């Protein structure tokens, strides 16, 4: 066989491959998941994927979604962003351009969600981050909202003022210290917002110390904090750092109460904290199983029977995020990406397992309540719901 014949054969083969990949054969609605399955925060990715699979199975069992008079079922396309910003961008591009999803759920951690939101914005695809609380996820650098990007959680603007108010009114704290991871976006902005709010509520911030991702030794910073003698230590950090910080703080003789924010809310934090150093600590969260909403009970039972463990807040927020996508598809009554984004923009109220969502006009961040939990013998115990 001569060379020309071989090249022609190759050409035909690749054209066939392209043709095959261009035309989806089944009428399904593809939803992309951009999750942190490996890397720094794998527990987050696992919860996200579990909840997504659960809701998709529930919807498909009940017959799917009616779009333009046709019953269609949901299909998930799952991508692992490795908790890395660059990989999350690559996954976003793949999901939107190659897998042709109608909407993307995730990423969850802000350092991935912010760069990925740029991709969703420029490619005109609806993106809902279940868990990223960083302002820049849904906002452009000039403060206006990105057209295609929404979130299912509250932001630091809603969370930290309520948390600071709780610390002063209920914990009677007056001298706060802050130790946070300066190289991660979410802890960084949470620390700044909290500092501002705590001062505004009448408290004093006596020490602000930082570390960088990957550090395991915090003794130098904690020794400095101990010298400032705070009665509250606010630790906005990812869950795998918190037990180490708590252990080292108590060993150095710091008696201040620990306060955390939503990144603490995975059961892994207490598995890693075998010394029970976090006992009596408080943190704010998106979701509680002890909430009395009927939707929560059903969600909890179904999740437990599918995965043998209770859902955490990332699972609940992912469940609500996909709920919002389904609501938008139903309202748009089409699979056109622009129509779906338009329908999502018109949603004003939505009731999910994490509570009631209120979307103010032209605002892509929902107004929601925060839930305060305390850690008691390795369990999260519901304290109260703080409403905005």
């Amino acid at each position, binding site marked *: 066989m001569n060379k020309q014949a071989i090249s022609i054969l190759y050409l035909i083969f690749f054209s066939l491959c392209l043709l095959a990949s261009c035309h989806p054969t089944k009428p399904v609605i593809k939803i992309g998941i951009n999750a942190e*399955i*490996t*890397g*720094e925060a*794998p*527990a987050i990715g696992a919860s996200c994927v579990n909840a997504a699979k659960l809701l998709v199975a529930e919807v498909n069992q009940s017959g799917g979604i009616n779009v333009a008079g046709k019953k269609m079922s949901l299909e998930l396309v799952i991508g692992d962003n490795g908790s890395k910003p660059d990989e999350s961008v690559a996954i976003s591009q793949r999901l939107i351009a190659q897998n042709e999803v109608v909407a993307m759920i995730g990423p969850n951690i802000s350092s991935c969600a912010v760069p990925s939101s740029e991709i969703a914005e420029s490619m005109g695809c609806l993106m809902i981050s279940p868990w990223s609380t960083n302002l820049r996820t849904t906002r452009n650098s000039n403060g206006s909202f990105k057209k295609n990007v929404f979130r299912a959680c509250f932001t630091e603007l809603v969370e930290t003022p309520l948390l600071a108010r709780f610390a002063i009114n209920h914990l009677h704290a007056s001298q706060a210290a802050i130790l946070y991871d*300066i190289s991660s976006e979410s802890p960084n902005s949470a620390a700044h917002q909290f500092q501002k709010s705590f001062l505004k509520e009448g408290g004093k911030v006596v020490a*602000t*110390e*930082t*570390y*960088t991702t*990957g*550090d*395991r*030794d915090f*003794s*130098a*910073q904690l*020794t*400095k904090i101990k*010298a400032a003698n705070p009665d509250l230590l606010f630790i906005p950090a990812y869950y*795998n*750092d918190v*037990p*180490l910080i708590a*252990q080292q703080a108590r*060993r*150095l*003789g710091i008696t201040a109460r620990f306060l955390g924010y939503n990144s603490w809310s995975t059961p*892994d934090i207490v*598995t*890693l904290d*075998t*010394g029970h150093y976090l006992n009596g600590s408080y943190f704010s969260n998106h979701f509680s199983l002890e909430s009395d909403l009927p939707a929560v009970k059903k969600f909890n039972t179904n999740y437990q029977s599918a995965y043998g463990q209770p859902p955490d807040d990332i699972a609940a927020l992912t469940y609500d995020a996909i709920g919002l996508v389904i609501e938008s598809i139903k309202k748009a009554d089409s699979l056109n990406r622009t129509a779906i984004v338009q329908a999502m923009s018109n949603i004003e109220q939505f009731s999910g397992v994490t509570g009631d969502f209120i979307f103010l006009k032209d605002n892509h961040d929902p107004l929601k309540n925060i839930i305060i939990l305390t850690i008691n013998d390795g369990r999260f115990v519901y304290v109260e719901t703080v409403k905005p």
Partner: protein
Amino acid sequence: MDYIAQQVINAFQLGSIYALIALGYSLVYGVLSMINFAHGDLFMLGAFTCLLLEAIVPIPLWIVLPLTMITIGFLGALLERLAYRPIRNAPRVSAIITSLGCGLIIENITLAISPYPRHMPTLLQNSTIHFYGITISFLQILVVGVSLTLMLLLDFIIRFTSLGMAIRALSCDRVMVSLLGIPANRIISLTFALGGALGGAAGLLYALAYPVISSSMGILIGWKAFVAAVIGGIGSIRGALLGAYILGTTEVISVTILPSTYRDLIAYSLLLIILVFKPYGILGEPPLQKV
């Protein structure tokens, strides 16, 4: 006063861990003039080996420490046999790239097996000693004590045993040593085993002191220990020790005096300044040129 004393203790603990890892870099560099970037990952495997052994049978520290050291020492020698020996005469940059690759392979295999951060079981009673406002935990004493003992042991091996003599001879002239009938390959394997064993011990002690372990734990600390080895004079055993304690102290001092945000900036600027004045490191010697 007690504040300063507490920070000195913090610096000593950090420096001891850096020293144990830095020794591995220096040993290998001294013998082969190559930088084994997979060393940080051997350190990580040390922590995981201990976790694995404890998961099989709960054994006390004085048994699990030598077992971990033997396992990681063996892995270090295996790494040399499989990855570095075939390219020993290739350009040096190939060896560096190979070691970076091996490091990534080890990390990702561990990541595939254990994607979640793990908690290290407590092997020791957590007791602390308080005096004059200073807090020292038994663990800190243990970390520093075991590190110093291992370093003294290494110094003894290098200076007073025939293996140590062979290692020192190899670092002078590899070709000549083989001609004199010393089994160079076996000595190089043993050097890697020694370095690996120290790295494994460091991983174990580190995991005891900071009990959340993950597959990426060796990257940052591996780099820092490498910097320490270079500052002290890479190839020099005592230089590695000195460099490690200097790095640990600088890090703690910069946090003590300035906001912690500037820690890495200050620490590494200072180290750059040291290198400007002592380009071969503090105890390093420029290579002899024979004319």
